[in-house]
């Protein structure tokens, strides 16, 4: 893709930059951010995004609670987090400025919609007077753009109604930022043409306003220069931009195709997991069956029913839904059927923080069921690798006939990054463990090595059998209340999962293989931990990062890794669940903790300074 030739002489190269779009929930900031993301991705930047929006669809207008934000970090270097603080903030109203004032780099640029900086909006945002008048933004490059007025002016001859004209102002802001970072506008133009296919007036108006914003930035003197961020040096391949929930959905599609299975999703809408249901529902043409059930219980139970009948069956939810699915997952454990349960975690307990991220369902995933009911637990750790973990979860569940719980979180699910597209031909084979017609079938006879039983699919002649939640007799699968048999079966179910550790790869360490400080994380915190450790490594600190994706079972070399460091710190967005899990599994080690429960990811800066402190003591 070609960059538009600029007439601005002062173009400065940047290695990386963090931009935040913030406005009212109705201001279209998510769309604006996504557009900037897609354009930057096409230019070859590495990037990471962080959408952050209120739980209410239209929270009280103009208030801090109603601010919707979209942060994006782009770079010509390796980018692993959406960035701690913004170099550029677009604030569409005073509330957006107030909500973000502590997250702008000193000396950074703030583009404000000056038309919204009036007494009424100050009051709604909880300012007594204009925040622009009390020196608090001294030292920043404050760009006061009359965005509302110029949008109206641009569209004064348009046939659109006043409301639609008002809505186009996000495109003005986008135009300004496109100019600032030397980005072409074609991608967004073609996006608008598709999005508003049915309304050419809207297409024209939005494009016009975006150009007006672009030209405004080009003209005014407030901007002393524009910047470029060159394309990143990524490994060779074909790339696209993906969001975590989308990548997850596609991983399941790929797994179903490679396993020659139909994909079945039973689900009930819940933030931040619903986008997986939305994404898969689009792809009926690939044979996917999505069932929006009456509740989460029906979601998991329908999936188990479909699994019994031969589908690759999954159910997707967030914490409160996982609580409801517990009994169903127990049944899948007892009947030893394939099932993938995805939990895109959010802040809890109860309804908690629906749109914010957290890692506090770990214990629920591991132990949130009655009886001895071990499940395989996996965690994805970047938006793009949600694809791989969905694939891996499917492979394990189909080959071992045991349920897998896959943990993601709101940050991963909604975050985006470039993904080097994998072809389904290059992925590991999936060989479902299924009995065939003519087999001498005993439902609970099992493979000696991996301890998995074979499943027999209804419709297969001669393999009629009964499954259920009552304890099963070893080998025959008949109902059994025999005390010794029950103990044996409990051990088998648990050993089956332990034996997986012979098959899964060894845990890797990033940085030093031994030394002073071992940083441990799991799941969605990978980006920030990696960035922090990376910085420390550049200063030749003795530090290693051990980031887990396999939670149950843990990789077989975990203990060996722990024993090679003087000090261990477990970092997670909860009160210490993984740390406790490690304590339980590996006695004799001291696990220090670093935790955060604010609904936001770790910043690299806070991690870095904490690790420095640990290293200095």
């Amino acid at each position, binding site marked *: 893709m070609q960059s538009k030739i600029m007439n601005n002489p002062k173009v400065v190269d940047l290695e990386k930059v963090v931009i935040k779009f913030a406005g009212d929930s109705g201001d279209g900031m998510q769309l604006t951010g996504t557009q900037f993301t897609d354009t930057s991705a096409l230019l070859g930047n590495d990037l990471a995004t962080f959408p952050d929006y209120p739980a209410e669809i239209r929270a009280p207008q103009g208030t801090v609670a109603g601010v919707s934000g979209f942060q994006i970090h782009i770079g010509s270097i390796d980018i692993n987090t959406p960035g701690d603080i913004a170099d550029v903030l677009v604030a569409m109203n005073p509330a957006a400025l107030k909500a973000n004032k502590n997250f702008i780099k000193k000396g950074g640029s703030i583009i404000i919609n000056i038309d919204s900086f009036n007494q009424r909006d100050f009051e709604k945002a909880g300012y007594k007077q204009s925040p622009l008048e009390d020196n608090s933004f001294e030292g920043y490059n404050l760009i006061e753009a009359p965005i509302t007025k110029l949008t109206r002016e641009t569209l004064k001859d348009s046939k659109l109604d006043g409301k639609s004209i008002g809505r186009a102002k996000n495109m003005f802001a986008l135009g300004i930022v496109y100019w600032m970072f030397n980005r072409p506008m074609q991608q967004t133009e073609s996006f608008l043409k598709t999005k508003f296919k049915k309304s050419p007036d809207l297409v024209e108006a939005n494009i016009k306003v975006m150009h007006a914003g672009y030209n405004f930035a080009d003209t005014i003197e407030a901007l002393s220069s524009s910047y470029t961020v060159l394309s990143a040096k990524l490994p060779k391949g074909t790339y696209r931009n993906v969001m975590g929930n989308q990548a997850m959905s596609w991983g399941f599609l790929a797994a179903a195709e490679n396993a020659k299975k139909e994909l079945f999703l039973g689900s009930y809408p819940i933030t931040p997991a619903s986008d997986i249901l939305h994404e898969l529902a689009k792809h009926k*043409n690939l044979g996917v069956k999505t069932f929006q059930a009456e509740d989460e219980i029906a979601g998991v139970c329908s999936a188990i029913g479909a699994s019994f009948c031969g589908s690759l069956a999954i159910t997707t939810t967030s914490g409160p839904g996982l609580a409801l699915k517990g009994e169903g997952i127990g049944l899948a454990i007892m009947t030893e059927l394939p099932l993938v349960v995805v939990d895109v975690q959010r802040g809890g307990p109860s309804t908690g923080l629906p749109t914010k991220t957290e890692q506090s369902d770990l214990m629920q995933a591991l132990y949130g069921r009655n009886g001895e009911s071990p499940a395989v637990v996996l965690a994805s750790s970047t938006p793009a690798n949600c694809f791989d973990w969905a694939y891996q979860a499917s492979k394990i569940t189909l080959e071992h006939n045991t349920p897998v719980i896959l943990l993601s979180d709101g940050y991963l699910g909604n975050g985006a990054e470039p993904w080097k597209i994998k*072809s389904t031909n290059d992925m590991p084979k999936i060989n479902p463990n299924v009995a065939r017609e003519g087999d001498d079938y005993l439902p609970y006879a099992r493979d000696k090595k991996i301890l998995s039983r074979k499943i027999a699919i209804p*419709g297969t*002649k001669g393999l009629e059998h*009964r499954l259920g939640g009552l304890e099963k007799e070893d080998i025959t699968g008949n109902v059994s209340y025999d005390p010794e048999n029950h103990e044996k079966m409990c051990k088998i179910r648990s050993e089956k999962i332990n034996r997986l550790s012979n098959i899964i790869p060894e845990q890797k360490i990033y940085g030093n293989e031994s030394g002073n400080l071992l940083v441990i994380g799991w799941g969605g915190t990978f980006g920030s931990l990696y960035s922090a450790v990376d910085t420390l490594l550049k200063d030749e600190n003795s530090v290693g990062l051990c980031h887990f994706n396999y939670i149950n079972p843990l990789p077989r070399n975990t203990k060996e890794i722990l024993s090679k460091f003087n000090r261990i710190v477990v970092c997670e967005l909860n009160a210490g669940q993984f740390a406790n899990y490690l304590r339980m599994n590996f006695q004799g080690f001291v696990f220090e903790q670093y935790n955060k429960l604010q609904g936001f990811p770790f910043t690299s800066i806070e991690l870095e300074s904490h690790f420095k402190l640990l290293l200095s003591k």
Partner: protein
Amino acid sequence: MEKLTNKDFSSDQEVRWCPGCGDYAILRAMQKSLPLLNRKKEDFIFISGIGCSSRFPYYMDTYGFHSIHGRAPAFATGMKLANPNLSIWQITGDGDALAIGGNHFIHALRRNIDINILLFNNEIYGLTKGQFSPTSKKGIKTKSNPHGTTDEPFSPSDLSLGAKSSFFARVVDTNPKLMQKIFVEAEAHKGTSLIEIMQNCVIFNDKTFSSITGKDVKKDAQLTLEHGKPILYGATMNKGIILNKFKLETVIIGENGITIDDILVHDAYEQDSTLHAMLARMRPPEFPAALGVIRSVKRSTFDNDMNSQIDHEKKNAKFNNVNELLFSGDTWNV
């Protein structure tokens, strides 16, 4: 296709219901009905929830699944969606279907997924030893309400017709012939076929249906509906039901100038469920209880609708395989 008999459908598991339990008769009737359906043995699934009745699948030599309490409709839905070719029979109790599973029950009926539901209504929780259920008669004394229940029961027919049930039939566990006939009709019906079976629990709620099933009263206390036939009952079939203004009434042919032509003719195919609901509500002593197929109407099924959508999408497919999707849209090369 091999000719199957009832023996082909009996599993080797010992049946463990209490002696005299109504469930035995239902099991026998089912084992006799399946050979009449002309389907392969491997294409049947019996799926149940939890309760005495829900042990049923263990005794059938078919694919079977004894699931968890109340959720059988959800399992059945997943099964039918995964493989529309299967004949799926859900076994459930009044507690299983109407208390803990009430939500799934109404949604299955609303969607009209093509499965058959056998509701074993004994108006009690059998397996947990005799607590009252959502269909228990108000005031009965049970362990969980020794002073008599204060719960108003609901009727399975009103609930299911309210949920847009396309097929509703009722039978008593003492009438194996009628059970067989209804099972065959239920399988032929495309959509959710609900069969309420008035089932006697000899241990915890014995004779709760005796005013309907009692040998001495049953001729006047039961009537069997047949589509297109006048609604008659009694030992000599001289009694009938008429519609007077907006109410049903019992009449005797030959008395007060009533002739056979005055008697209501049963129309199970009528989309409007008003009359079906009124017939289903009839109870002794004022009325005989209605048995047989009360409602059987054509309505598109959930599984069929979903599959036609998929077929349509496949025909107009943007992507024929996953790779085409992965590499579609905005991509760039490095």
